[in-house]
């Protein structure tokens, strides 16, 4: 399988910890991926208006880049990129008229897009291609009694037909954590919205969401929250300041990408973790549990 890697905007700065930990873990698993040349922004959100073909152009152009690279599979890490690329792909596959219009508009592209690229999220590749038992065999380091609350957010699991697992009770992260020897707690807030982009103009709304999500994780006995979306990661980590201001009983909790735990388990060096990018430092918990 020839896999192209599509990073997206935030993996190259705020979420460098997501990218670095993933690339190290993939190398340890012997899975080779090549970053797409000249990739562009996916638009981050799939346009929900019926007449808005223009906004599907950016994701489709990235699929053209994948064809140019001779690859039939695009790998995404960010949940928003995954959702936007996959939905745009499914839309043009189901609607040849819109695909023709988009191809006509991109008449300077050497490759015409034919709907023949697969968009996969890293979790799908780990679950279906690498498989969790194979990952378990490569684990070098196991924590002692680490309990996590796995937070999926919206776009990994919705809408139906796009999401990579059950919409109401996804378990793919729990299964991966089991393979790593990490215990997952029951977490009723695992697919509740964090407020997403409203963090720009309504930060306190997002701080309130963060309060409820993190507090639920704490009540369930979790030591930290795992995420797979850079926007969820930012909101749940950095909006804890606002949550503490709004709610006196709020207690901080570290938020990590699931790939950071995967990388730790597979023996990646601490440089691949970029803990400097976190607001709530996960190191004390990880050290206490013998993971660092």
């Amino acid at each position, binding site marked *: 399988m020839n896999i192209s890697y599509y990073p*997206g*905007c*935030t993996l190259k*700065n*705020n*979420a460098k910890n997501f990218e670095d930990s993933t690339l190290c873990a993939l190398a340890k698993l012997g899975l080779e991926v090549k970053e797409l040349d000249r990739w562009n*922004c996916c*638009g*981050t*959100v799939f*346009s*929900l*208006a*019926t*007449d808005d073909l223009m*906004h599907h152009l950016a994701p489709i152009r990235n699929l053209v880049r994948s064809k140019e690279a001779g690859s039939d599979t695009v790998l995404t890490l*960010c949940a*928003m990129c995954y959702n936007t690329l996959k939905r745009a792909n499914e839309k043009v596959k189901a609607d040849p008229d819109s695909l023709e219009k988009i191809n006509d508009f991109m008449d300077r592209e050497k490759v015409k897009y034919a709907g023949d690229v697969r968009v996969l999220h890293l979790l799908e590749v780990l679950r279906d291609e690498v498989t969790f038992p194979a990952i378990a065999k490569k684990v070098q380091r196991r924590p002692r009694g680490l309990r996590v609350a796995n937070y999926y957010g*919206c776009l990994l699991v*919705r*809408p*139906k037909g796009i999401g990579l697992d059950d*919409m109401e009770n996804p378990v793919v992260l729990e299964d991966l954590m089991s393979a790593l020897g990490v215990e997952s707690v029951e977490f009723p807030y695992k*697919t*509740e*919205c964090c*407020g*997403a*982009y*409203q*963090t*720009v*103009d*309504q930060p306190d*709304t997002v701080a*309130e*969401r963060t309060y409820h999500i993190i507090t639920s994780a704490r009540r369930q006995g979790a030591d930290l929250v795992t995420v797979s979306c*850079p*926007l969820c990661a*930012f909101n749940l980590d950095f909006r804890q300041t606002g949550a503490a201001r709004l709610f006196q009983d709020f207690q901080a909790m570290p938020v990590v990408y699931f790939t950071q735990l995967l990388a730790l388990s597979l023996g990646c060096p601490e440089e691949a973790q970029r803990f400097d990018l976190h607001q709530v430092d996960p190191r004390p918990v990880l050290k206490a549990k013998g993971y660092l």
Partner: protein
Amino acid sequence: MRTHISQKKIRDDFVRKVEELSGQKLLVCYQCGKCSAGCPQVGQMDILPNQVIRLAQLGQKEDLVASKTIWVCASCLTCNVRCPKGVKIAEVMEAVRQVVLRKRKDRVRIEELTPEQRASVPPIALIASFRKSTS
């Protein structure tokens, strides 16, 4: 809230536009309220999601375009996947937002964000915010 219902409003261009932009048949909704029951943002809303659909059916444009609700909805799609009638409520919210935005009435004004505000959030947040809240 006092609502004046008339044939004129129901047959108004607004109802047709919302149905067209959202791709939804508004009268399919039978007001069970499941969308409002599961919405994680409902505590911030001035009109509940099921009320948005009801007001749209009745062509109550003024109430909808002035509502806080359409900007509080972040398209998490919880309502869409739970609706027993298959109505895509988030698409209706998007349609009402588009009715406002296409009059060049931006909700988030980029020039009013301070450099500190812009630098304090990741690019993924800014791009999504501008895509959802500006024309």
